[in-house]
Structures are given as structure tokens and as C-alpha cells.
């Protein structure tokens, strides 16, 4: 296949995907109409419909609440993820360069914490920080940084030892060995870890925001419930999914692909 036909087939693939979702939305609308209007088995305040979601979106866009929510959540996500990355990388380095037996004992503990759903940190967060920004960031950090720590640790430990040996015989040692060999060699695994860390951070953020009363997507979700506006709930959920995907696919996975490609992986 030449480049041109590749582009064409890619475009037609995207077209097909869009069509697929369009059909899905139509089915959803029809199901809604049948269920609520004709059969009357569903209550319209408990069942979202595509047009209602659209209306909720336009309303929230017009009164600005959607943009505020996105901006606040976005800033929190950025701050929380950044702090998680810093803390996670820091501990990861300590774990993999520190005394071997301490790391050996700590690893299962960290893996245990990592399986804990981040919402479990909410009580702690509230008792320590109150219903505050710090509480949400705390939940994000607890939710994401350990997974980053573990990925840094395994990225470093899985560097091909032959590369390290080769570098050492060429005079690399100590810090140089880290900056010139171990870090670049572990980069692909590390980025994959960051990607996973992002997904944890985003989930943790929503868990934190749902609990709190500050502006944000999680809070808008709960507002929708309080107003018995299921369409707003649905809309906010879709926005949460979309933003999560955009950061993952649009940013982190772009970097990942670039790194992998340059190494022929």
C-alpha cells in the first residue's frame, strides 16, 4: 500500500468509527423514547437521553459552569499529577538505588497500597486537611504516586545489565552511569509507568472531587444528582472520559510512541 491509500483508508476508518457511534447514539435516543414515552417503564429524570445531554452541555457551556469545572479539575489534575510524579520518581530512585534489603521489604508494601482504591484515602484527607484543595491533591497523590514509584523501580531494575557493563568498561560510574545509561535505557518503561500513573491520578481526582464542595467536574457530577438532572450527570461523565483520554492519547502516548519509534520498538 502506498502512503496515499494509507491515508485514505485511515480517513475512511475514522469515518466508519464516527458512523458507528452516531448509530449507537440514535439507538440510545430511540431506546429512551420507547422506554420513557411509549412504554412508560423508565422515569425520565433517571434516564439520560442524547438530546438532553446536548441541552445540558449547551446550558453549562453558556453559563460558564462547564468551563469553570474543566479548568479547576484540569489545574488540580496537573498539580496532583506533577506532585505524584515528583514524589513517585523520588521514592522510585530511593527504592532502586537504596539498600537492597530495605527495598526488598518495601516493595510488597507499596504494591499493597497501590491496590487500595484511592477513594479509601478520602477519610484521611478530610480529617487531615478538611474539605479543601489540599485534601483533593492528597487523594490524587496517594492514588498515583505509588504506581509511579513501582514503575520507576522496575524500569531501573530491568535495564539490560549488559549495557551497564559495557558502559562501566568505558569509564561510566556513579551518577554518570545513571544519567547516561540507566535513565535513557529505562525511559520507555518509565513513560509507560507515567501513563498508568496518569490514569490513577485522574480517577483519584474524581473520587476526591465528588467528596468535596469545591468547583470541579466531580462536584458538577454531584450537583447534577442534587438537581435530579441525570442529563447533566451523563454529560459530566462524558467530559471526564474525554479529558482522560485526551491527556492519555494526545499527550503521554504521543511521547511514548516517539520514544519507542526512535528505538525501533
Amino acid at each position, binding site marked *: 500500500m502506498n502512503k496515499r491509500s494509507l491515508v485514505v483508508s485511515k480517513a475512511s476508518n475514522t469515518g466508519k468509527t464516527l458512523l458507528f457511534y452516531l448509530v449507537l447514539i440514535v439507538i440510545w435516543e430511540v431506546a429512551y423514547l420507547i422506554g420513557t414515552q411509549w412504554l412508560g417503564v423508565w422515569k425520565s429524570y433517571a434516564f439520560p437521553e442524547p438530546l438532553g445531554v446536548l441541552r445540558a452541555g449547551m446550558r453549562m457551556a453558556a453559563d460558564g459552569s462547564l468551563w469553570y469545572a474543566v479548568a479547576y479539575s484540569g489545574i488540580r489534575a496537573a498539580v496532583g499529577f506533577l506532585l505524584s510524579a515528583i514524589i513517585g520518581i523520588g521514592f522510585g530512585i530511593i527504592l532502586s538505588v537504596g539498600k537492597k534489603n530495605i527495598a526488598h521489604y518495601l516493595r510488597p508494601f507499596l504494591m499493597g497500597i497501590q491496590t487500595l482504591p484511592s477513594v479509601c484515602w478520602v477519610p484521611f484527607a478530610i480529617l487531615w486537611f478538611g474539605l479543601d484543595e489540599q485534601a483533593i491533591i492528597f487523594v490524587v497523590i496517594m492514588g498515583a504516586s505509588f504506581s509511579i514509584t513501582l514503575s520507576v523501580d522496575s524500569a531501573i531494575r530491568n535495564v*539490560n545489565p*549488559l*549495557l551497564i*557493563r*559495557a*558502559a*562501566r*568498561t*568505558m*569509564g*561510566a*560510574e556513579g551518577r*554518570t552511569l545513571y544519567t*547516561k*545509561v540507566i535513565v*535513557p*535505557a529505562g*525511559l520507555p518503561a518509565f513513560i509507560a509507568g507515567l501513563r498508568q500513573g496518569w490514569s490513577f491520578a485522574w480517577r483519584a481526582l474524581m473520587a476526591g472531587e465528588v467528596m468535596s464542595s469545591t468547583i470541579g467536574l466531580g462536584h458538577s457530577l454531584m450537583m447534577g444528582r442534587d438537581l435530579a438532572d441525570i442529563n447533566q450527570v451523563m454529560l459530566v461523565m462524558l467530559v471526564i472520559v474525554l479529558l482522560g483520554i485526551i491527556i492519555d492519547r494526545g499527550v503521554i502516548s504521543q511521547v511514548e510512541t516517539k520514544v519507542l519509534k*526512535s*528505538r*525501533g*520498538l
Partner: protein
Amino acid sequence: MILEIDRVSKRFDNSDKEAVNNVSLTINEGEFICLVGPSGCGKSTLLNMIAGLERPTAGEIRLAGEKITGPGADRVVMFQDAALFPWLNVLDNVTFGLRLMKKDKVECNRIAMNYLKMVKLTKFAHYRVHELSGGMKQRVALARALAMDSAILLMDEPFSALDKQTINKLRDEVAQIWEETRKTIVMVTHSVEEALFFGDRVVVMSAHPGEIREILTIDLPRPRPIDSASFVSYRKTILEEVRKEVDRSEQAEFGGQ
């Protein structure tokens, strides 16, 4: 610079036998030494101890009178696997060690290009590692090792992962480069032919425990055509020597079964 291996032994923690047992050998400057012997006789272990990647459990190795305690740029190793850095292109791989010596970047690139020319890869200087064939990778590794201009070059079966044609070509290149540079080289090989082709002296080792059986001085004129009569008869002698060692160590290992 003289390399002295002085009554060196190595026993790994999980083993009850010495992988290398009481080995002594003095290697002169400019010498090409080949280590041969059955699998598991400690050739790589000995080489790694010279490199400083392993520590002897007894005895010591001295380079120019100084005890070797760790790896260093004066003893570059070329491994069976090219061990190139996949995040760097060919040129940056070759300059890796030079840059660690804090040489000027332009100067490093100049030196590297020189060695890439020697291994006939100048055209590929900006290629990525994954875009090279196995033979090309090994040539980059050779250029990288040579560019360090280390006192000693250590090679652990550098060609064994390659096909016959590539091996022959690379051998000629290495022989030629050695004639030009007269570097001290210690090469581990499982090919007797290769040992005869390169070696000023061939060290035959035996396994369980790993010891030096015999040191043969090869008086063949260079370049050495591998099909000449003297080459073939030499080869027969050494092959028999190694065969005996293989039999003996297999006996020792599996004899009771």
C-alpha cells in the same frame, strides 16, 4: 603496559568449585592473546576479572604494576552481543566513552568518524541502532571499543553471533586494524581457527576447575592464510589439545552417571 595475572582464582558464591583456579599469565604490550577451552572453563570469568567487572577471590591482576579493582576506560570490553545503546545513533554510540573523558565534541566526532571509516560504516553514522544488521552492529561495537584507544582491548567471543561470511570479513578487518594499531588484545573464542588466525599466543584452558592447560606460541607469519599447510597442522595440534580438555571436563562433570 604489561598485564600481570598473578595466581588469580575466582569462586562464585553459589558454587563449590573454582570457576578460575590459580591462573597466572603475563601479557606483554602489543600482544594478541587468545583464550580457548571447553565451555564453562572460565574464559569469560577470567576476561571479566581483567575488565574489573568481577573480583578475583584470590590473587590479583595488575596493569602496569597497578592492581585492578574495578572497570575502567583503559580496559574496554567487546562482548558477544554488540551492547549498543538503542537511544543513540551510531556516531553517538562510538563517541559515548570519549565524551565521558570530557573531550571536546567536535574532536570526539572526528575520532569516531575515523574509526567508523576503519570498520567501513561512515555512511551509517547517523543511523539508529535498530536499523543495522547484526554484523554492522558488531562493527560499531568494534569502532566504539577502538575509539577509546584503551591500553588493552578485551573481546569475549566477539563474532560468535554472526554468520560465516560476516565473520571472515570482520576477522580480516580486525587483523588489519591490529596490524595498524598494535594494541594489546585478549580475545576469548571457541574457534581454534580464530585463535590461530589472531594469536601471538594461544592459551588453552581446562574446566572444573578452570585452569591453564597449555600456552602455545604461534610462530606463523602474518597475514595468516587459514588454508596454508602450516596453519592446518597447527590447527590439528590445538584441536586435539582442546578435544582432550573437553573430554576430560565432561568426564569430570558427568563421569559418575
